[in-house]
């Protein structure tokens, strides 16, 4: 054990050098995107595959080295507030500055972003590999791989960024790439529409993100102008804090992560104090913080598909299946969770925001699960299950279980990518059949796909030895025992919603599995016999299935840590992310906004309970779809309206269309008719032309062709000018 630890803590790469080389991880896929996009058609299909897969593979290898360097005991990233241990990073200079505001090109990898690096490049690599098989007949392969690489580069920028503006670059980048990839087959109007819907919905969220960032700048600026006495805190002198803070802000900018972390350390004593300067004057710091967090939540809801902005994700299945796996399972949708894990130190200072996040997450999880019950498209079910699982992650963040939420990000990335790629494999082998009621019995014909899909399904439902169980259970456990100060009811409500959703997850996932793989082949199936996909497609499936199982070690409570005299047992992931959440944990202990349980709860009981829920719901699905429905052939009439309601996604899209899209379209059309067609085109553009033409028509009669006449007019005008000048000069 000692030797193993020493091995992991001695990196072959110097941590400082690794920090300075971080940009290479982003640059490699970016270069790949450039080569595939510009020269892809010239260099041919095989070479494009080589470039695209190679770029992400190289990025993965570098990420491994960086990850090793992060764990090195020598590793530390520089920051204005002292070095950060277990992190590597570098500041590459000023990006832009205006007045006292400044943004730098700073990249940092710590345990949180390091794990994300591995997930993004690792799962991304497998998906690239799979795509070389899946897209083997598509003429637009060069475009596809260029977008995929660009997407990876944007996502890597998002996780490595050391400041919110740089993070926003990646944030927008993944938004753009998702638009390009969802609408990849843009000659199909419906698919192009899905791409547009994703983009516009994301833009609404991005607006919230931007406003939140602006407000953060105002808060930071106002803190720099506070009298030093108000910055006194335990173990730090106010004058010292103020000077270091001002130094930090001027060196790295108000929106850099170290400054935000220091802001969180300063804020606890200011929460009830009113902001004295700037546009936010009169608002309490605590209120401002809550507003900022809720706006960030809007941004995260757009990217991570939460209520009210989740509608784009199910439609995003219009893209090629590897895209669904990449964007909507492993990377893009996790960016909202990542953002809140990054800003966890701010989150724990606002109970209101925590309660809202927990409730939004829990209700999204439940709503999406209910919709997933009746969907017939294999990818649609998976899409809603993604929304549902993301809801779980937000629930975890809301109740302060950041490590559990992040663990669920990692495990979900593995099993959901496996499920999506498995679904793609099923469709590939069944003449692109998507409807699960017209599949069935695929198990014998596609053994590898079947086995991996089953493992991933069991993982997501939370059957005991698989990774999904540990992450989901950790979230639910935290929701059960942690209390949000003043909002205990929200925590309890979120917990019960979560339990119901967990049962629902098991039900709809088993339904999907039974209808697709078990039973007899449907009579109206497109092909009589399915065929197993090529090894290049099944290979990634096997790897991902293995990872879905192996990732369970992160959730095992095997680390024993000394905390204030007592030995505390932590899960591996919790222990691993401890350096990232150190400030957060300090703030929780200091402010008590998050009430942690005094004593250890017996985990075994919770484990058994969660396991029972999953098994019972799964058994119910087995009974309904393998025994009851095949026998009666038809759903009871009483349930039919419910089924229809769920199948039509609770008519949310229709409501949005009626409440938001239609009025907006109406306003846009009115503006087009009035402002554009009448005012600009009619009055301004054509009006100018008309006036010029008419004036010319009148004045052209002055042009007689008589040169002497012109000269005479000129002479008279000059003489007139002369007389006027003389009159001005003469007294």
């Amino acid at each position, binding site marked *: 054990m000692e030797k193993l630890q020493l091995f992991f803590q001695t990196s072959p790469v110097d941590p400082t050098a690794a920090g300075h080389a971080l940009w290479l991880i982003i640059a490699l896929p970016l270069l790949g995107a450039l080569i595939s996009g510009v020269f892809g058609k010239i260099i041919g299909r095989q070479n494009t595959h080589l470039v695209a897969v190679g770029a992400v593979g190289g990025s993965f290898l570098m990420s491994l080295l960086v990850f090793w360097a992060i764990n090195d005991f020598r590793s530390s990233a520089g920051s204005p507030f002292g070095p950060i241990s277990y992190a590597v990073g570098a500041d590459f200079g000023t990006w832009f500055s205006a007045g006292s505001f400044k943004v730098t090109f700073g990249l940092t990898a710590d345990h949180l972003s390091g794990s994300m690096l591995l997930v993004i490049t690792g799962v991304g690599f497998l998906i690239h590999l799979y795509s070389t098989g899946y897209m083997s007949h598509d003429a637009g392969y060069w475009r596809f791989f260029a977008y995929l690489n660009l997407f990876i580069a944007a996502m890597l920028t998002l996780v490595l960024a050391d400041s919110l503006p740089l993070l926003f670059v990646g944030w927008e980048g993944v938004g753009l790439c998702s638009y390009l990839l969802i609408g990849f087959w843009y000659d199909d109007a419906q698919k192009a529409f899905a791409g547009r819907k994703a983009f516009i919905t994301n833009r609404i969220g991005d607006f919230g993100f931007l406003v939140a960032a602006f407000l953060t700048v105002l808060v930071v600026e106002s803190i720099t102008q506070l009298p030093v006495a108000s910055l006194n805190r335990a173990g730090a002198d106010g004058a010292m804090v103020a000077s270091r803070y001002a130094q930090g802000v001027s060196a790295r900018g108000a929106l850099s992560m170290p400054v935000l972390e220091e802001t969180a350390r300063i804020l606890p004593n200011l929460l009830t104090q009113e902001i004295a300067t700037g546009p936010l004057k009169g608002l309490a710091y605590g209120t401002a913080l809550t507003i900022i967090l809720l706006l960030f939540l809007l941004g995260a809801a757009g990217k991570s598909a939460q209520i009210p902005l989740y509608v784009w994700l199910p439609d995003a299945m219009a893209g090629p299946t590897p895209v669904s796996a990449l964007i909507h399972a492993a990377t893009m949708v996790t960016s909202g969770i990542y953002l809140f894990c990054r800003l966890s130190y701010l989150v724990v200072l606002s109970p209101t925001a925590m309660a809202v996040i927990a409730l939004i997450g829990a209700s999204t999880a439940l709503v999406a699960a209910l919709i997933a019950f009746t969907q017939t498209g294999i990818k649609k079910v998976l899409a809603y299950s993604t929304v549902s699982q993301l809801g779980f992650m937000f629930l975890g963040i809301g109740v302060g279980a950041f490590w559990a939420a992040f663990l669920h990000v990692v495990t979900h990335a593995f099993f959901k990518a496996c499920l999506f790629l498995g679904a793609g494999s099923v469709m590939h082998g069944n003449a692109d059949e998507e409807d699960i009621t017209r599949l069935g019995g695929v198990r014998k014909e596609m053994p590898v796909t079947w086995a991996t899909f089953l493992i991933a399904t069991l993982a997501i439902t939370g059957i005991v030895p698989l990774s999904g169980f540990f992450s989901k259970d950790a979230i639910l456990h935290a929701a059960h025992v942690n209390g949000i100060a003043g909002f205990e009811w929200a925590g309890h409500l979120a917990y019960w919603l979560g339990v119901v959703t967990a049962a629902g997850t098991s039900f709809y996932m088993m339904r999907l599995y039974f209808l697709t793989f078990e039973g007899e082949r449907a009579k109206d199936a497109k092909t009589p016999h399915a065929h197993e996909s090529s090894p290049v497609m099944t290979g990634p499936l096997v790897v991902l299935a293995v990872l879905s199982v192996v990732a369970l070690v992160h959730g095992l409570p095997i680390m024993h840590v000394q905390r204030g005299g007592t030995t505390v047992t932590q899960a591996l992931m919790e222990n691993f992310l401890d350096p990232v959440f150190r400030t957060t944990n300090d703030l929780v202990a200091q402010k008590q906004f998050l009430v942690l349980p005094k004593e250890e709860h017996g985990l075994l009981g919770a484990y058994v309970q969660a396991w029972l829920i999953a098994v019972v719901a799964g058994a119910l699905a087995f009974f309904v779809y393998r025994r009851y429905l095949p026998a009666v052939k038809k759903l009871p009439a009483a349930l039919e309206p419910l089924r229809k309601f769920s199948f039509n996604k609770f008519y949310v899209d229709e409501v949005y269309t009626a409440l938001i899209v239609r009025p907006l379209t109406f306003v846009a059309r009115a503006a087009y008719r009035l402002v554009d067609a009448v005012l600009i085109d009619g009055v301004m553009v054509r009006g100018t032309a008309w006036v010029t033409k008419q004036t010319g028509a009148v004045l052209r009669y002055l*042009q007689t062709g008589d040169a002497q006449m012109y000269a005479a007019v000129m002479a008279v005008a000059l003489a007139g000018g002369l007389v006027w000048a003389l009159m001005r000069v003469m007294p």
Partner: protein
Amino acid sequence: MLQTVPTAHYLILAAVLFCLGMLGVLLRRNALVVFMCIELMLNAANLTFLAFARERGDSVGHLSAFFIIAVAAAEAAVGLAIVIAVFRSRGTVNIEEIQSMKH
């Protein structure tokens, strides 16, 4: 004692020459004469420059006069070429008959 001519006299002479030239430009019909009248106006301007140069006792006025002479030479070359070209194409240099550039 040498009697010097006052500057005002030069200026009056220049003004008279300028006005004669301008009247010629505006009233005469023969393009060649109009052309000569333009030269007259240029030289009236020259005379004014030189009168002031003499008054001030510096050489800036002379400089301007040389420029005007150079410009006048170039203008004469171009202008005469145009007059000849017009005469060849139309058989006349009467500017009242050359009014085709109109609305």
